[in-house]
């Protein structure tokens, strides 16, 4: 019974294999194995379709996330910038500049790895601005709570990505892994800065924190797919 089942599964598997028909050992086309692989980084690396789709998803959502981060800080600065607190303004400005650098890194990865950017990228920009402005209207501490929630979620997200990327052992991917690690470290610095500036003393802290963290989760899920 078991062997019959195994043979049936074997038949189905070979029928599936018939559909992908290109052999990698063709001497004329050694570098071209269409349908099953993708050449990225100007041909320096060849990934299988599954690996490329994973990296594609990661970089797509990272770019959308960094766009949103830049506009969150812009929104917060628009409301809190002219309150007269120079230290707060310089902090927000510093964090925004770091996010702009992250966004440039992600744009470069999109070009390198032939990633399709998400069509929700303008939505992420506008939504981030609205989130930043709204949280800042609720007060400085609420703005810090918003930052803390977003950075917590992003930290988790980058760690998950790094965990999955480390399973791929290509040396050409080291640059990507290092840049994601750098972004994660700076996001966690922002998290610490937000906590230092009183994010946990905001009114209805738990509610705000969980709401924004959940919203980030939904946004990440959408941007990975759309």
């Amino acid at each position, binding site marked *: 019974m078991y062997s019959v089942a195994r043979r049936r599964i074997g038949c189905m598997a070979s*029928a599936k*294999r*018939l*559909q*992908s*028909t*290109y*052999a*990698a*050992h*063709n*001497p*004329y*086309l050694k570098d*071209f*194995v*269409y*349908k*099953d*692989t993708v050449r990225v980084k100007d041909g320096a690396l*060849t*990934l*299988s379709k599954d*690996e490329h789709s994973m990296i594609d998803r990661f970089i797509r959502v990272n*770019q959308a996330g960094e766009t949103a981060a830049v506009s969150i800080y812009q929104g917060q600065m628009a409301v809190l910038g*002219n309150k007269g607190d120079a230290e707060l303004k310089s902090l927000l400005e510093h964090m925004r500049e770091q996010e702009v650098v992250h966004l440039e890194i992600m*744009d470069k990865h*999109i*070009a390198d790895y*032939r990633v*399709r*950017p998400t*069509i929700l*990228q*303008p939505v992420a920009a506008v939504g981030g601005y609205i989130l930043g402005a709204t949280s800042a209207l609720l007060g400085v501490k609420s703005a810090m709570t918003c930052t803390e929630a977003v950075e917590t979620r992003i930290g988790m997200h980058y760690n998950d990505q790094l965990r999955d990327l480390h399973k791929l052992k290509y040396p050409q991917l080291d640059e990507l892994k290092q840049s994601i690690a750098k972004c994660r470290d700076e996001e966690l610095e922002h998290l610490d800065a937000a906590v230092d500036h009183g994010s946990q003393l905001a009114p209805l802290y738990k509610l705000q924190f969980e709401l924004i963290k959940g919203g980030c989760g939904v946004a990440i899920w959408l941007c990975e797919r759309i």
Partner: protein
Amino acid sequence: MSLRLLTRAAAATSRTPFGRCCAVQSQTRYFQQGGSIPEGAGYSGHDNTKNNTNLQILDLALTKVHEHGWSTAAVAHAATELGLSSMAHGVAPDGAISLISHFMDRALDETTIEVDDQLHEFDSTAECLRFICTTRLKQTLPYVKRWPEAAAVLAQPQNVPLAMRQLTNLSSQMWYLAGDKSTRIDWYARRSALAAVYLSTELFMCEDRSPGHQDTWRFLKDRFENMDKAETIASKTVAFGEQFSRNLYNILASRGYVSH
């Protein structure tokens, strides 16, 4: 049995359409030189099939398209010519659409190879793109008499998702070869514009009877000019909108309605 297969395959070589893509020819020479299929061959440690008989059948089937059309009959005839059973038409599991899809993959691959060494000669991205588009259209030229049937098969509702995937893949690959590095929403605008240009030109080519298909190339040139003009108009509109809102903000600020 395999030697007979290869001899027949060698005989069939001269008739296969894609010279440089031809697995049949190269595999024959490869085996004759004593090569063997390495175990677990493939990039990234993935094994892409242990033999490419399927590929030989499908490639040969493309040469049968003129007599038998895009159908499993062409695949079955190709299989019998290679000495296999005509039941091997199962390498095209969905029939006509599998053969057409195989042709499109092959044509794109051949375009990539052919264009590879000539890309640096062009000054602008638009010219480069037009050259790549022309090369891809020339891959369809040998089948132009039968292409309307293929277009009809691709338009069937059950095949539309595959056709869309192929078209977006084609469009994306052509822009990538032309050196596109867009990272924002214009990524989508460019690809849909190119897909529309390519599709309309391919359909025009099916009906074109001019000498050397010069009408097709002129049609393509006109479509590219439309595409450029549309992009220019769009960017000018955006720039106008930006300038307008900046001016408005300044006026309101000078009146004191917004804080500056």
